[in-house]
């Protein structure tokens, strides 16, 4: 999943990767920082290294493989992991014996033993600190046996055991005897929520989900039955769609979730199995034996990051996370330096990606004045016209060091290629992908007037785009290129049969030549981008998105259906940290109104919609008079928000003594808690039930927040919080602890035994079962507060007009839950705030900044190039069976009711080819992959005689 991101970063023109380096100091001010770097030697020049791996194959010195947690060895000459960027090896000088073998075998001449530490400087306008996290080391917790019993592993170690690139190649085995485990126990909160043994009072936020995931994957990988038990205090599956995953693990996959904390792990010395003893909820002692125990270790800040923060004068909190304000989540204490990811606070991947975009947004708005400067612009020469020419094919066969050449007889393949139709030039290279070979290819294209190019080397997934750029750079249309993968699909898997591999390489080249002859130039349509953004929703999310776009000098139209800005937050008073929400909204809306790039339309609704990415046209009805306006804009930011659920449960509405948390917030802000003797709160009202499976994420902290206000206003008020799992994730765990410290009583109930509520005159009686004493409890309260969950705003009409997809709960869907959390599936449409899912104000702000950032990447372009790889319908032969409409995962094909034909908008088509494959009459063709271009490969294969 992370691989394409790595490749994209590695290849990006405007990203300079400086690896193996540390920031030693920063001088200057925002807009103009001078950063001093210490570049540590890697002893292998990453510009020359092709990643072929011959050095590591020959290296005689071994070292502990740290990335695999020491479960296997690596060589002293090594690459950390298969997807690493840059894909270049390094020498671990602590392990190197100085034999010189790697220098001898390296055909790319990349080895340089004399590399030294260097000091360099870079000048930048703003900085983002993303030093990441380190898993907690449980060695000091002697009672858990890590480091003593081989089959006790940490979760990050188990992650490597599950990985195909890990020590056991993805086969789940336990370290002691490499046997498949029959049962595995996960122990949660190791190094988190513990102020006694490790001082990490916070919740690491991610362990409940990763433990569940690891259990699910382990069950998939293991043949036969595997018993998985997760020992936990609270299951914190609070993210979008996480509760559904938890339920699937529990109810479908049979993962056991045990509410208990194990005291001690002991080992059976004969079998290596592990015994755990624990007290059940009822106080009964149980003993179980597991083949393996996985410690769900928490997230910590590495010492190196703490030192970096000190050098840079960045304030840290008591757990060493970067200090931030609730309304400025990605800003550090030093102006112009931003942060994201776990260094900001414990969080998962979507949260980290969102924050990364938010940090990029703020870092960029600081520099928006100089946008377009200091970047590399690729100059593309005019295209050579090849129409009417017979194919003149050039074939470049790659040795890939010895990766291909060591198995496949490359000269024989090259000679064979010469004999194929239309081939006028052949060549072979040590590394076809190296920079100097690109220059050579260009020369040969011009010299031999080549009009089709084939590279027989590795995978088009990683290299096709680069070779296509080489073609473009000498005027050849990029779609006149074809690849034959004679490495991944040949030499690597047939290394024991060189002759057959050579034969297969010839077959693959012949197929490529067959297809190359059928290729024709295709032009990528360029469409201009309208540089105005439309933001829908004027709450905290919409206002932040609009403001940040305005600050980056883009025109914004902000639409709000209510007569004033602020959204649902107008009903809220303080964040759990104490931030004044009303004051924040006042300032924020004043800033939005004052920004001359942002036009605010209040009392306004969307009534019509058309167009496509970069060129949307939206009709809106403005103000009381419902005056219609047509707005042209390039992007959309959806920020329609959410509201508090109106409970049907627990007698809500029957008594003014039964209120919601938001109403309690008003009460505490107004007359306060001085008259209250006992307050009961019930969690998960309208969440985690049959009609709303998902967790509403914010209610636990909301209850704790209000309980703290009560206790501070009136210490004598008794507060009881009836809950299912307390989900005060991340740093909010401290507030949960504070609430307990002030005497708030937390009582857990099961969903099948919910509390009973009776209105008795002036009082409310709540009957529940205390989970510890296992006894009925009757609490006499003068106020019952329901922690009502969140519901998305009613956007049915809007979604219908703009064709925006939402999930079954009604929250809008993102393009990719992990990697693209603020992009919607349709290009040019972005998403933020509670319209995406329940979240805190702090999280909403960073997501809004993230959406603005993503929108800017679109708006900053003068025009966009549409891929030529799109589907086209032959309307003459189409029978309008609508199969394509049902097949397309992006809902692009549409039946035009006026012209009565099926239309596939090329601006919206993703080029996946699903419709072309499904069309029963073959009336849909996908550019670059039309039927002839595929069948000719099969013909060419068969022509060789199987």
């Amino acid at each position: 999943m992370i691989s394409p991101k790595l490749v994209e970063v590695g290849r990006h023109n405007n990203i300079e990767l400086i690896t193996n380096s540390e920031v030693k100091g920063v001088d200057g001010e925002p807009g103009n920082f001078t950063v001093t770097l210490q570049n540590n030697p890697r002893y292998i020049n990453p510009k020359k290294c092709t990643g072929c791996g011959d050095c590591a194959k020959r290296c005689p010195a071994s070292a502990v493989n740290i990335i695999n947690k020491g479960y296997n060895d690596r060589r002293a000459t090594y690459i950390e992991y298969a997807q690493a960027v840059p894909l270049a090896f390094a020498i671990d000088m602590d392990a190197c014996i100085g034999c010189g073998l790697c220098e001898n075998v390296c055909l790319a001449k990349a080895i340089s033993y004399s590399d030294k530490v260097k000091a360099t400087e870079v000048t930048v306008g703003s900085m983002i600190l993303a030093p990441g996290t380190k898993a907690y080391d449980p060695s000091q917790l002697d009672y858990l046996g890590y480091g003593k019993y081989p089959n006790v592993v940490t979760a990050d170690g188990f992650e490597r055991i599950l990985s195909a690139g890990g020590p056991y190649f993805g086969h789940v085995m336990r370290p002691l005897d490499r046997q498949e485990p029959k049962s595995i126990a996960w122990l949660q909160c190791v190094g988190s929520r513990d102020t006694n043994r490790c001082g990490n009072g916070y919740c690491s936020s991610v362990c409940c989900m990763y433990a569940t995931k690891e259990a699910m994957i382990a069950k998939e990988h293991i043949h036969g039955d595997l018993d998985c038990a997760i020992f936990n205090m609270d299951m914190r599956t609070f993210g979008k769609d996480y509760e559904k995953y938890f339920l699937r693990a529990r109810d479908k996959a049979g993962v056991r979730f045990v509410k208990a904390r194990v005291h001690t792990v002991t080992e059976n010395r004969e079998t290596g199995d592990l015994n755990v003893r624990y007290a059940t909820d009822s106080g009964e002692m149980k003993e179980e034996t597991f083949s393996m125990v996985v410690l769900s270790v928490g997230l910590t800040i590495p010492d190196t990051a703490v030192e970096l923060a000190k050098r840079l004068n960045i304030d840290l909190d008591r757990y060493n996370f970067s200090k931030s304000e609730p309304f400025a989540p990605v800003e550090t204490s030093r102006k112009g330096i931003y942060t994201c990811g776990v260094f900001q606070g414990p969080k998962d991947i979507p949260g980290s990606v969102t924050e990364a975009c938010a940090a990029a947004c703020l870092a960029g708005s600081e520099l928006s004045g100089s946008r377009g400067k200091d970047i590399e612009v690729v100059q593309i020469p005019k295209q050579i016209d090849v129409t009417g020419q017979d194919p003149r094919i050039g074939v470049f066969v790659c040795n890939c060091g010895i990766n291909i050449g060591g198995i496949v007889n490359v000269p024989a393949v090259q000679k064979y290629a010469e004999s194929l139709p239309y081939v006028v030039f052949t060549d072979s290279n040590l590394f076809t992908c190296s920079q100097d070979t690109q220059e050579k290819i260009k020369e040969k294209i011009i010299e031999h007037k080549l009009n089709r190019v084939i590279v027989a080397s590795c995978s088009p997934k990683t290299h096709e785009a680069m070779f296509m750029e080489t073609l473009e750079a000498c005027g050849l249309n990029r779609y006149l290129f074809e690849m034959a993968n004679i490495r991944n699909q040949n030499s690597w898997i047939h290394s024991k049969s060189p002759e057959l591999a050579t034969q297969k390489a010839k077959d693959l080249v012949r197929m490529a030549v067959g297809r190359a002859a059928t290729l024709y130039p295709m032009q990528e349509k360029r469409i201009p981008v309208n540089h105005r953004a439309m933001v829908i929703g004027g709450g905290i999310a919409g206002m932040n998105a609009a403001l940040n776009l305005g600050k980056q000098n883009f025109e914004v139209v902000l639409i709000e259906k209510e007569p004033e800005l602020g959204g649902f937050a107008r009903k809220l008073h303080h964040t759990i940290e104490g931030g004044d929400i009303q004051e924040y909204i006042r300032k924020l809306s004043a800033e939005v109104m004052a920004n001359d790039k942002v036009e605010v339309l209040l009392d306004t609704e969307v009534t019509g919609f058309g167009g496509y990415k970069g060129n949307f046209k939206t009709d809106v009805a403005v103000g009381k008079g419902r005056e219609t306006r047509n707005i042209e804009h390039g992007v959309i930011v959806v920020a329609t928000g959410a509201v508090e659920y109106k409970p049907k449960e627990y007698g809500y509405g029957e008594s003014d003594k039964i209120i919601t948390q938001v109403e309690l917030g008003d009460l505490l802000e107004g007359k306060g808690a001085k008259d209250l003797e006992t307050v009961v709160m019930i969690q998960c009202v309208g969440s985690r039930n049959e009609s709303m499976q998902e967790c509403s994420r914010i209610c636990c902290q909301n209850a704790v927040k209000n309980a703290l206000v009560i206790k501070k206003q009136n210490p004598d008020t008794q507060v009881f919080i009836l809950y299912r799992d307390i989900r005060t994730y991340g740093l909010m765990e401290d507030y949960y602890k504070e609430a307990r410290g002030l005497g708030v009583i937390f009582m857990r109930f099961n969903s099948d035994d919910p509390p009973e509520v009776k209105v008795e005159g002036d009082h409310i009686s709540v009957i529940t079962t205390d989970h510890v004493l296992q006894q009925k409890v009757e609490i006499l309260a003068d106020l019952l507060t329901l922690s009502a969950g969140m519901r998305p705003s009613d956007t049915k009409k809007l979604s219908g007009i703009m064709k925006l997809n939402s999930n079954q709960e009604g929250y809008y869907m993102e393009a990719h839950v992990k990697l693209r959390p603020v992009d919607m599936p349709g290009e040019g449409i972005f998403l933020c705030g509670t319209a995406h899912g329940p979240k805190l104000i702090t999280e909403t702000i960073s997501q809004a900044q993230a959406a603005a950032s993503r929108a800017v990447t679109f708006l900053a372009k003068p025009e966009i190039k549409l891929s030529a790889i799109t589907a086209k319908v032959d309307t003459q032969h189409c029978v309008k069976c609508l199969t394509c409409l049902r097949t397309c995962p992006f809902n692009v094909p549409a039946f035009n009711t006026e012209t009565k034909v099926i239309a596939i908008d090329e601006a919206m088509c993703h080029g996946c080819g699903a419709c072309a494959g499904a069309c029963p009459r073959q009336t849909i063709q996908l550019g670059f992959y039309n039927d002839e271009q595929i069948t000719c490969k099969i013909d060419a294969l068969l022509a060789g005689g199987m």
Partner: protein
Amino acid sequence: MAEGAIKLGGKKKKSTIMDMVKEILPDGGNLNACLTCGACSSGCPATGLEGMDARKFLRMAALGMDEEIMKSNWPWMCTMCQRCIYVCPMKIDIPQLIFNIRSRRPRDQRPKGIVASCDMAMKGETLSAMGTSVEDFQFVVEDVLGEYQEAQPEFADMEAPIDKKGAEFFLNQNSREPVTEPDEMVPLWKILHTAGVSWTYGSKAWAAENYCLFIADTENWKKMLHQQADMVHELGCKTYLNTE
């Protein structure tokens, strides 16, 4: 535990036992911080006795169920091993809670045998819960030593000194050994002899039993500790070796 439903809520009770114990302990013993995770009960040797365990007991205290707490005999089953606080993520001082609840029970209602042992210890100057006198102890030690010096020539010059001034270690001794199993004293003598260290018993305040601690008789426990400390000082020993 209570019959029927536990009644909670209404007006806050004046002050519960837990409130009072919290005032005595540093950081209130973290008694309020319980996550109800059960790690304490999972590792406690007294879990399940009388249907009670550490987590439940703390819970009753937190819910202000003072009457039930005072009635329960469970606190007397705690061995004060501290396995609970060792792993408790909140470092809740359950042993101290137990101790302070024991101390709140009228002395005549505490376990009879232990009370009698404490009383016996307080009677003589040896602090022996079995009432062993200075002379008896001296006789047994010398007698046993003589036997071993004779029977095992390699230990012919082994010592078991009493009131040796300026010895490095002051060793205490549970009185069960000199009274009922005198041979059991010898292995430790041998170790100390082989290690070549200088040690001594005291003729007074040598007994190691902690019965006054177990019945939470703070006053007598304090007296005992003073007598032991005085003896160590009198002999000028540097280290007090507690064998109990």
